[in-house]
């Protein structure tokens, strides 16, 4: 059973850029599905379309078996936690105010909100700065605040666009464990990342996208079985046919020393 399905999804921006070309993806319920691709491959466009920040040009999207349209969008969003690769948050609020606001939007009980905020502060290692404004946070701390905001209402689906970008190694491990724990409790996760170790550590399934076209999607184990003895990086280069690209060098760099 799939939690996200797209059928011939296309996105062409007004400047003529074709970001997505007939994308058909299937994210299994209960899976942690990774999405990888080069910069500009269409990952963020796809994720932003799934949360209705960007309009699709054509095609169909189903989330929780509901068509993603004006009628269903609010009920779909009630069960989604989203982290954008831009810092989309009320940055003039403190992290406690920010999580409290999100809890209110999702109509959580006041005591629940309070308890969850205390847990999040502890786990995200933000308990030293609960009243500091988010805009005064470092990139990593901002990211933690956003992840906390996506988790506070215990959603059924997490859509995370480069969630661990800029986060310190210790917090990375903590957040990975939290995501694993959420997944164990039935939360499906769809995440994009440039850090392939994150994909290796977390994902059960993988989608590779290149120039708006899906090049691979399946169970990650199957991928490793097919390309035995290759690392995920090498597999990615092979599938996206970028071998020529990685051999490039700067001529003046070779003359040093």
């Amino acid at each position, binding site marked *: 059973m799939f939690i996200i399905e797209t059928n011939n999804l296309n996105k062409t921006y*007004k400047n003529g850029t074709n970001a997505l070309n007939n994308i058909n993806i299937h994210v299994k319920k209960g899976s942690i599905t990774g999405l990888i691709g080069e910069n500009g491959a269409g990952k963020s466009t796809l994720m932003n*379309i799934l*949360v*209705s*920040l*960007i*309009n699709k040009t054509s095609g169909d999207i189903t989330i929780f078996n509901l068509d993603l349209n*004006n009628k269903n*969008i*609010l*009920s779909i*969003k*009630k069960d989604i936690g*989203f982290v*954008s690769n*831009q*810092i*989309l*948050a*009320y*940055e*003039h*609020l403190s992290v406690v*105010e920010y999580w409290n*606001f*999100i809890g*209110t*939007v*999702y109509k959580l009980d006041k005591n629940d909100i309070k308890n969850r905020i205390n847990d999040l502060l502890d786990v995200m290692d933000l308990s030293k700065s609960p009243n500091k*404004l988010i805009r005064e946070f470092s990139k990593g701390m901002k990211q933690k605040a956003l992840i906390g905001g996506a988790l506070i209402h215990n959603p059924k689906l997490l859509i995370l666009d480069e969630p661990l970008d800029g986060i310190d190694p210790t917090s990375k491990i903590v957040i990975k464990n939290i995501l694993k724990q959420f997944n164990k409790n039935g939360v499906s996760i769809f995440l994009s990342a440039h850090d392939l170790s994150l994909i290796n550590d977390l994902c059960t399934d993988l989608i590779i996208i290149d120039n708006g076209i899906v090049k691979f999607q399946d169970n990650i184990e199957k991928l490793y079985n097919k390309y035995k003895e290759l690392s995920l990086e090498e597999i990615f280069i092979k599938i996206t046919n970028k071998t020529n690209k990685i051999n490039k060098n700067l001529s003046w760099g070779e003359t040093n020393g």
Partner: protein
Amino acid sequence: MVNLIFNLMLNDIKIYFRQDKKTHINFIITVLIFTLMFINIGPNLKKYSENVFLLLFSAILFQGAYSINTLSVSQHALNNTKFLFTLPINSKSFILSKNLLTFIILITEFFIIELIFILSDLLPITHITKCLYFITALILDISISNILFKIDHKRDNFNVGSNVNLIKEGFKLLFVLSVFTALILFVILNSYRNFISKFVISIIFYIFSFKILEKKIINQANFLEEIDSQ
């Protein structure tokens, strides 16, 4: 829904009060200069007090006519709007929170000016009986703000491009605001009669403007894309 609207308004108020110190200092200096000017020239205004009052009221209307635009898609507000649209927040709550906050700001400004004029003996205390007309004008102003936002919801262009662009945008803004302000003053304040009919018309017009804006924002993705592409 009431709780959500209240929270949305509170967050917008926090944006204002948590701006950098420079903005607050600028604001305090402006208020001081205005007060000093007023104290100095105040007694000479007695003859024209009603007109000066209308001039200041026009400034409030100017501010109100682009209020939802400023609160939603200005340079500082756009990311907040995008963030809100990732959450299950319906267009109704979004628009109501912005309109209600605008109304509170405008009416506070109006009463402060009214109070200053009455305390300075520039207007008689009986002027306060005309308050309902001014409130009706504010409702009409917010309705116009909704319609302008529906038609022209592009991001803040004042800091983009050349000085020519700045002048062009400024002139356009001045023209649009002047026309609508004059219209409101003419419709509501040209005579202090038929209050009920004017009030009813402004409420109907507000509901109409609310509905057409709600219809526009219901497709949030499309709406955001239009803002970014303009």
